[in-house]
């Protein structure tokens, strides 16, 4: 763990609950060079503010979390992508938003900036004038001459996110797959700056709707850590319930889409119905079907009384009642045999990309943000095969797990306040929450109660590259089933 000792040796700034070490540029470069020796040290996120670049690293198993920063000198910093290919998208994003160059990076093509914004590097301290009309990002050249190119998106008509996927086909087999995102960039990092956490929470809740509770919660916890605020126990318990409800709803939606992709319409219907009943219960309990804007820094925005809790119980009860039927249908249909061996993610790739959530655990990576705190004796379900069938089975297992957790949580709901006021002070915090697709991280720095800098790390940063790799060698007609098995969402990555 040479890289880890280099980081630890550097001085640290206060960031709750993990300090952020400030490395000199030569030390950062040495750390980057030492990274290949430590495959267990996963790069979770790489982001920037106007003067520094920050990295969040994580050792799975030990649950050791380290933050490191380096100052940007002469517009550049040593790249991490040679050691961690997953860093390439982060480095391209940092360049497009702030203009900081990753020196020695493996990919310097634009990413979020498709050449349509009014100015380049919109978040830099002094946005440079737009000298030339920028071009939209190019794709990698074809691996060899016999490859036919098949573009998919951004308008797919599949009630989905906007993305562009370019497949290189060798006959029926996929020889090359490259995703281009950035279409959904709404400028959220810029909208967060200068706002109070409560105001900014509205944007955070709309990063990605399938993880609206998870993003809002991780953001709220980061702000609460930064400001040393303790949330009332009633809000803590309800937040956990909302997170598990969101997980069930998203898993059911994903299972329905997987079922539809392989022609198992019975599975799709068996998922859609309980999901709808759950969503109606959530609307009665929290005032919003997706629980958007319900979690705010300091607590909860909703008032939840006995009648609301009863509605929540009814919604959860509908899922519990429908689950045996869903499992039966899944086993009776050709769904799982069809998905076996499709889109396999080997454990080493999952490790390199810091792949979390269902996709990571399907490849045997024992990491779930719920292990970090609060849940004693929690054991995440694991699979080894790493294929689409494993991911599908895990989703069903996780619904069962979430129902168990909800039963425990609903057993005793503490009484008391729903939220506390936030002090207008300065501080820095980071927090992690397990969403349905994987681990959501939020980092933010507050200056007298206003956001000076913030970064949300969506699980999509690891899922999309994993999907690209998993498509290699698959038949073109299996593309949709493989995409669905990852539960891909672009909005959270596009910011």
């Amino acid at each position, binding site marked *: 763990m040479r890289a880890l000792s280099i980081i630890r040796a550097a001085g640290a700034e206060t960031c709750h609950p993990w300090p952020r070490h400030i490395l000199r540029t030569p030390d950062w470069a040495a750390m980057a060079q030492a990274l290949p020796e430590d495959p267990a040290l996963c790069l979770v996120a790489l982001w920037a503010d106007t003067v520094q670049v920050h990295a969040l690293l994580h050792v799975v198993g030990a649950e050791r979390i380290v933050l490191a920063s380096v100052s940007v000198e002469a517009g550049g910093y040593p790249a991490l992508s040679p050691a961690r290919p997953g860093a390439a998208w982060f480095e391209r994003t940092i360049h497009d938003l702030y203009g900081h160059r990753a020196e020695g990076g493996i990919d310097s093509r634009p990413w979020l900036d*498709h050449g*349509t*914004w*009014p*100015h380049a590097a*919109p978040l830099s301290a002094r946005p440079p004038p737009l000298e030339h009309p920028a071009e939209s990002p190019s794709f990698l050249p074809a691996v060899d001459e016999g490859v036919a190119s098949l573009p998919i998106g*951004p*308008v*797919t*008509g*599949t*009630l*989905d*996110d*906007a993305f562009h996927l370019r497949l290189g086909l060798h006959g029926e087999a996929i020889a090359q797959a490259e995703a281009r995102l*950035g*279409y*959904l*960039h*709404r*400028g*959220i990092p*810029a*909208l967060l700056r200068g706002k109070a956490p409560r105001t900014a929470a*509205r*944007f955070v809740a*709309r*990063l*990605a*709707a*399938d993880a*609206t509770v998870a993003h809002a919660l991780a953001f709220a916890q980061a702000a609460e850590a930064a400001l040393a605020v303790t949330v009332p126990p009633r809000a803590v318990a309800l937040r956990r319930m909302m997170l598990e409800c969101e997980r069930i709803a998203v898993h059911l*939606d994903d299972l*329905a*889409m997987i079922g539809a992709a392989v022609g198992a319409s019975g599975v*799709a*219907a068996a998922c*859609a*119905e309980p*999901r*709808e009943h759950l*969503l109606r219960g959530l*609307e009665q309990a929290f005032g919003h*079907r*997706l629980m*958007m804007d319900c979690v705010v820094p300091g607590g909860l925005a909703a008032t939840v009384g006995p009648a609301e809790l009863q509605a929540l119980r009814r919604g959860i009860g509908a899922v519990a009642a429908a689950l045996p039927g869903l499992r039966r249908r899944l086993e009776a249909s050709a769904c799982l045999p069809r998905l076996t061996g499709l889109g396999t993610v080997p454990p080493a790739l999952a490790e390199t990309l810091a792949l979390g959530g269902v996709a990571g655990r399907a490849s045997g990576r024992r990491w779930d943000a719920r292990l970090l705190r609060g849940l004693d004796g929690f054991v995440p379900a694991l699979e080894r095969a790493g294929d689409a069938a494993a991911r599908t089975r895990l989703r069903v297992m996780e619904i069962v797990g979430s129902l168990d957790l909800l039963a425990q949580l609903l057993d005793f709901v503490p009484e008391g306040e729903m939220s506390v006021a936030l002090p207008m002070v300065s501080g820095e915090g980071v927090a992690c929450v397990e969403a349905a697709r994987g681990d959501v991280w939020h980092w933010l720095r507050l200056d007298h109660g206003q956001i000076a800098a913030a970064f949300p790390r969506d699980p999509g940063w690891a899922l999309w590259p994993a999907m690209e790799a998993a498509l290699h060698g698959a038949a073109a007609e299996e593309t949709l089933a493989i995409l669905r098995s990852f539960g891909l*969402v672009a*909005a959270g990555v596009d910011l």
Partner: protein
Amino acid sequence: MIGRFWKPRAADPLPPPDEDTTRSLLERLDSAAQMRLGRSLALLHVNGGSCGGCEMELRALRGVLYDLERFGLRFVTAPAQADVLLVTGALTRTLRVALEQAWDATPDPKWVVAVGDCAVDGGVFKGSYAILGGAGAVVPVDLTISGCPPSPVRLLSGLRALLEANAR
């Protein structure tokens, strides 16, 4: 044997379509369109920079409990087959061309529905450098369905108003 165990799923009863919306749409519809479209509409979803919430509710609409097809509304995957473009999202600058191309490729007569607060006027993202502020910035919008995201019931009442206006 099977008949004894099979019972048709009861889809949810729904409120009637919104009368004011129906009337306002009716005024905009020319008779040629009525002739050609008849009493069914093909819907194409175009993502204009959404967070995914509107898409989730559109998917729910397609599910068993709302059963969109009983009203003659169905989703298609190509502009050439579409009568109606359902545009979601604040319309990012990057997706402008995609929406323009989808609109150009959709045969006349066609409708554009702005689905969700973002597609109506940019919603919470108003003022961002990266957005144009809703579908109306690029294509003529015939109907807006507000909400963040609009619930399936709300979506359905808006779409049924379109259908009613179309059939009268």
